[in-house]
């Protein structure tokens, strides 16, 4: 709120924005924050809380832990990489750390390292986190087509995701982990990409993580049916004796999960995928139905052509598809009414702050862009020249390291990146996509994410130590992202055109 008021004052005093236009663009931005982003993230958390309180999520989690063998490399890929992606895809919020790290600790990984493994594993899925909210935000502020942005980010993430599983194996087992564990990293990364990539290219930003995670589960479990590492390694790459493996097994398996329970726990995800694909796929007109629009126009200081801040109330957008999925899930789960009350109480308790901040940040971002402040900043950045390709992901990284949110970072810098790209003749989608993926790479050092992530560990109120521990590998991934950006800029620019 303070930031919003400050932005309005600067826009009026320095950029000569009329007060009425300023208020109108602020309200339009806030409406976008509520309807485009808050609406979908709210129902995503409602689904997660429903699965949690009915025990379905724990059933799935326990079953995966049972399948994870005694080998720390399998545990890292199956739990931190694949289960983490599923959690990020549905709910985000630092839950992939908060859920995965304690499991790894029980399995013998040191707590600080377990947090780092969960955080680094959570890199690639963030752009499609919380049912695609960051990409939805990017489309809302840039007016670029949602599917085009989903596809361009997907192309970058597909290359980025080749690296983290190798890093995870190194983090839990050292170089020794690669000797006979490399198929795990290979299958883990390729399976996630196999699920994530086509969904991001042809269906949009809502489901790439969830499908990527489910394909990863299937591929890793199939791999384990036909192949296992020759030597079973524990944390630190230490070979485990038969006795130690038995102890590990006892800590993983209290009571074997029945196949019926596993199917029941997977059913909600299948319902979500079917409903969202049918509802939002390219064949569906539902998300395009608009009840009314609200537009305030201006003349751009960069192009001298009309530009606008706009909000279209489309009642059947992605968030409504998630609501419909949840209602269908209820028909199968049949939870008691009291439990549903608890679901909403938990969801509001977890989300009220984020929902409000989403409203304020979108209002601020729309004033920032509509007033021309964003255009001035883009014009200044464009003076860097083509070398800005190196800075674009760093801007996203810094944005998330401070705001804690890929969505907020995209709403603040998304249009600025588009305008810099246009001024410098870059492919239109390249810089905003690098902004988004830069933000996902920065998540392990975001204090807000760390706060939630450490909530189930002894590092509560000691997030600084965790962030410092994560920093080095986050910078390695940022460097990898910059290389991927250069690849698309110099060799494959056509893939970054709408």
């Amino acid at each position, binding site marked *: 709120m303070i930031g919003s008021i400050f932005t309005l004052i*600067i826009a009026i005093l320095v950029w000569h924005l009329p007060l009425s236009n300023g208020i109108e663009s602020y309200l339009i931005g806030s409406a976008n924050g509520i309807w485009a982003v808050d609406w979908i993230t709210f129902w995503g958390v409602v689904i997660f809380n429903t699965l949690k309180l009915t025990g379905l999520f724990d059933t799935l989690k326990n079953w995966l832990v049972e399948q994870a063998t005694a080998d720390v490399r399998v545990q890292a890929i199956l739990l931190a990489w694949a289960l983490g992606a599923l959690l990020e895809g549905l*709910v985000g919020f630092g839950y992939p750390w908060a859920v995965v790290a304690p499991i790894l600790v029980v399995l013998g990984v040191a707590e600080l390292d377990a947090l780092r493994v969960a955080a680094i594993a959570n890199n690639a899925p963030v752009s499609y986190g919380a049912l695609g909210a960051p990409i939805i935000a990017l489309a809302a502020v840039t007016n670029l087509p949602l599917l085009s942005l989903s596809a361009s980010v997907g192309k970058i993430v597909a290359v980025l995701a080749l690296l983290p599983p190798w890093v995870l194996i190194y983090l839990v087992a050292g170089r020794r982990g690669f000797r006979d564990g490399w198929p795990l990293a290979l299958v883990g990364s390729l399976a996630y990409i196999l699920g994530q990539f086509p969904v991001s290219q042809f269906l949009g930003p809502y489901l790439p993580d969830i499908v990527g995670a489910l394909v990863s589960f299937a591929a890793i479990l199939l791999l384990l049916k036909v192949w296992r590492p020759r030597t079973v390694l524990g944390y630190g790459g230490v070979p485990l004796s038969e006795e130690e493996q038995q102890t590990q097994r006892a800590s993983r398996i209290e009571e074997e999960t029945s196949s019926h329970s596993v199917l029941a726990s997977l059913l909600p995800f299948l319902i979500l995928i079917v409903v969202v694909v049918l509802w939002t796929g390219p064949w569906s007109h539902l998300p395009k139905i608009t009840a009314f629009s609200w537009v305030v126009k201006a003349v751009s200081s960069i192009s001298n052509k009309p530009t606008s801040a706009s909000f279209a109330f489309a009642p059947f957008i992605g968030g409504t598809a998630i609501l419909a999925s949840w209602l269908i899930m209820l028909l199968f789960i049949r939870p008691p009414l009291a439990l549903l009350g608890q679901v909403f109480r938990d969801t509001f308790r977890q989300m009220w702050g*984020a929902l409000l*901040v*989403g409203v304020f940040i979108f209002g601020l971002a729309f004033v920032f862009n509509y007033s021309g402040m964003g255009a*001035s*900043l883009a*014009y200044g950045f464009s003076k860097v020249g083509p070398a800005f390709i190196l800075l674009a992901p760093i801007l996203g990284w810094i944005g998330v390291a401070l705001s804690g*949110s890929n969505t907020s970072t995209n709403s603040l*810098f998304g249009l600025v990146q588009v305008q810099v790209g246009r001024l410098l003749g870059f492919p239109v989608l390249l810089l905003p996509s690098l902004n988004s993926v830069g933000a996902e790479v920065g998540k392990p050092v975001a204090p807000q994410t760390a706060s939630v992530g450490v909530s189930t560990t002894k590092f509560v109120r000691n997030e600084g130590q965790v962030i410092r521990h994560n920093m080095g590998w986050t910078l390695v991934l940022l460097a990898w992202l910059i290389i991927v950006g250069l690849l698309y800029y110099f060799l494959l620019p056509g893939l970054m055109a709408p």
Partner: protein
Amino acid sequence: MFHQVLDPTGNLGLTVLASLIPVILLLVLLAAFRVTGSPH
């Protein structure tokens, strides 16, 4: 219709600094209060 101004201070460096104020203020406030705008 409102016409945006590219360089309202007449000094591009100063204009860029002014345009960064709201962004930096917001990011610092979010970091200081440990609030996040969205779950991911």
